[in-house]
């Protein structure tokens, strides 16, 4: 069959518009690959294809005419897309789909297929018109982007999982260390308490008792620190309240009334132990000296915050001592002095006939 015979094949689509129709000439000459199929014939064969279609697919017109369009499909053509085309044809509806097609030489191209029914004046489908466009570059670029995106996403996912695992491990370790520190502090306390019970000398027993109270104060600091959500900061106000309740409550001295009012005062965790011990010394001092010999009274404790400054105040209504000096000697006094200095706190003593008032001034800015 030569080109002249081919020409006659196209006549079939010209029967309503005539051979000299400029539209038909345009379709033949356009760079856009196009085919027309005839659904009235068995297997809906191609009855017209233009030059651009032959160029795109690598097939000659004789190899195309009379065949169903599916000869362009191959092993990697998406079955689902093919099914959608089949359904559109059966329903007489237009369809727009990207399809992997095969050239005569076996190479592939991405075909942006647009297929629509052509109806006659009675509304019956007479032909299907299909235009193709080689969009391989676009699809490949999209695929490359999608692959890159997936690679980055996988990397982000892995990194996130690594970080989550690291955080979990750190939290677990923190809990484990906290647990062990607590157990050790509990055991140190138990050892000291058990030893204290064996000592008959009241002076030595009192010293051991004081030591035990210090370990207890440290244990309370640790407990409060790890009970909170934030292990970097320590609420010295709440600790004050806690310590007063423990120290006075357990003394069994129902004749000592406490009047406690505290603000939330956050100090860095590094200062917590030193200040906790200072508070413990001042408090146990008050109980031991102000309320000695069964004398009752009111212990007034406050923790107030004023901007960058805070004042912890412990005031008893005992007999007091002379002037503004702490009771001389003893480890307690030394501890207060040295530990307050370490924590950058200023301790002021004020004692008179109506009792003793100890103020611990904190510079939160400096802390």
């Amino acid at each position: 069959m030569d080109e002249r015979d081919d020409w006659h094949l196209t006549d079939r689509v010209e029967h309503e518009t005539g051979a000299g129709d400029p539209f038909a000439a345009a379709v033949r000459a356009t760079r856009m690959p196009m085919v027309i199929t005839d659904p009235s014939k068995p297997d809906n064969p191609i009855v017209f294809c233009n030059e651009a279609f032959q160029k795109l697919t690598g097939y000659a017109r004789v190899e195309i005419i009379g065949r169903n369009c599916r000869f362009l499909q191959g092993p990697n053509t998406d079955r689902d897309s093919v099914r959608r085309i089949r359904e559109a044809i059966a329903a007489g509806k237009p369809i727009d789909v990207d399809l992997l097609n095969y050239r005569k030489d076996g190479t592939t191209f991405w075909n942006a297929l647009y297929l629509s029914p052509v109806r006659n004046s009675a509304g019956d489908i007479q032909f299907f018109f299909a235009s193709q466009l080689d969009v391989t570059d676009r699809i490949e670029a999209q695929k490359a982007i999608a692959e890159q995106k997936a690679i980055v996403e996988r990397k982000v996912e892995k990194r996130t999982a690594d970080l989550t695992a690291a955080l979990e491990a750190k939290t677990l370790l923190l809990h484990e260390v906290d647990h062990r520190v607590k157990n050790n502090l509990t055991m140190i306390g138990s050892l000291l308490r058990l030893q204290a019970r064996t000592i008959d000398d009241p002076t030595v027993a009192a010293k051991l008792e004081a030591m035990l109270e210090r370990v207890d104060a440290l244990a309370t600091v640790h407990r409060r620190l790890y009970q909170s959500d934030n292990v970097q900061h320590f609420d010295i106000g709440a600790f004050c309240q806690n310590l007063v309740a423990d120290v006075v409550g357990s003394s069994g001295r129902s004749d000592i009334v406490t009047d406690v009012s505290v603000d939330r005062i956050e100090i860095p965790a590094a200062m917590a132990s030193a200040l906790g011990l200072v508070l413990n010394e001042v408090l146990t001092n008050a109980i031991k000296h102000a309320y000695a010999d069964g004398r009752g009274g009111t212990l007034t404790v406050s923790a107030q915050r004023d901007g960058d400054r805070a004042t912890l105040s412990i005031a008893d209504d005992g007999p007091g001592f002379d002037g503004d000096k702490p009771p001389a000697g003893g480890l307690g006094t030394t501890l207060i002095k040295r530990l307050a200095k370490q924590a950058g706190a200023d301790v002021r003593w004020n004692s008179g006939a109506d009792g003793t008032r100890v103020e611990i001034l904190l510079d939160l800015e400096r802390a």
Partner: protein
Amino acid sequence: MMRPTAPLSVLIVEDEALLAMDLESMIEDAGHRVVAEAASLHDVADLPGDCRFDLAFVDIQLACGTSGLDVSRLIQERWNTAFIVFVTANPAKIPEDFAGAHGVIPKPFSRNGLMAAMRYIEEGVCDPPPVSPQPASFHASPAFAATWS
């Protein structure tokens, strides 16, 4: 309901010998009696049938990999009038409903804290509601605290 009267009979469930000894001496200092000690769930299960106690102090992590939560369940089955207080370094492990127990003393405890807790528990058990201020060293379970209001 018959309320127990002081001195209370106490069971200590703790696998750390030092702590068990220490607890025992403080409980006795507070005027109560330790009637038995156990280090694991198995020890509690093996307690003689005539063993009676009003109050149990129960650690959570016990010997032989057993749990104080299981001990709490067992006590509720066999000694259903006993009060149960967990003593643990990890209070976060206790479920919200305290698994039927009555409260918790967080470790590390101090002598002061434990004595205050002991007094508060005694009041809550023998003559509720407690009149002492709530010590920081003891947290009553929501269900136990609700019986006081």
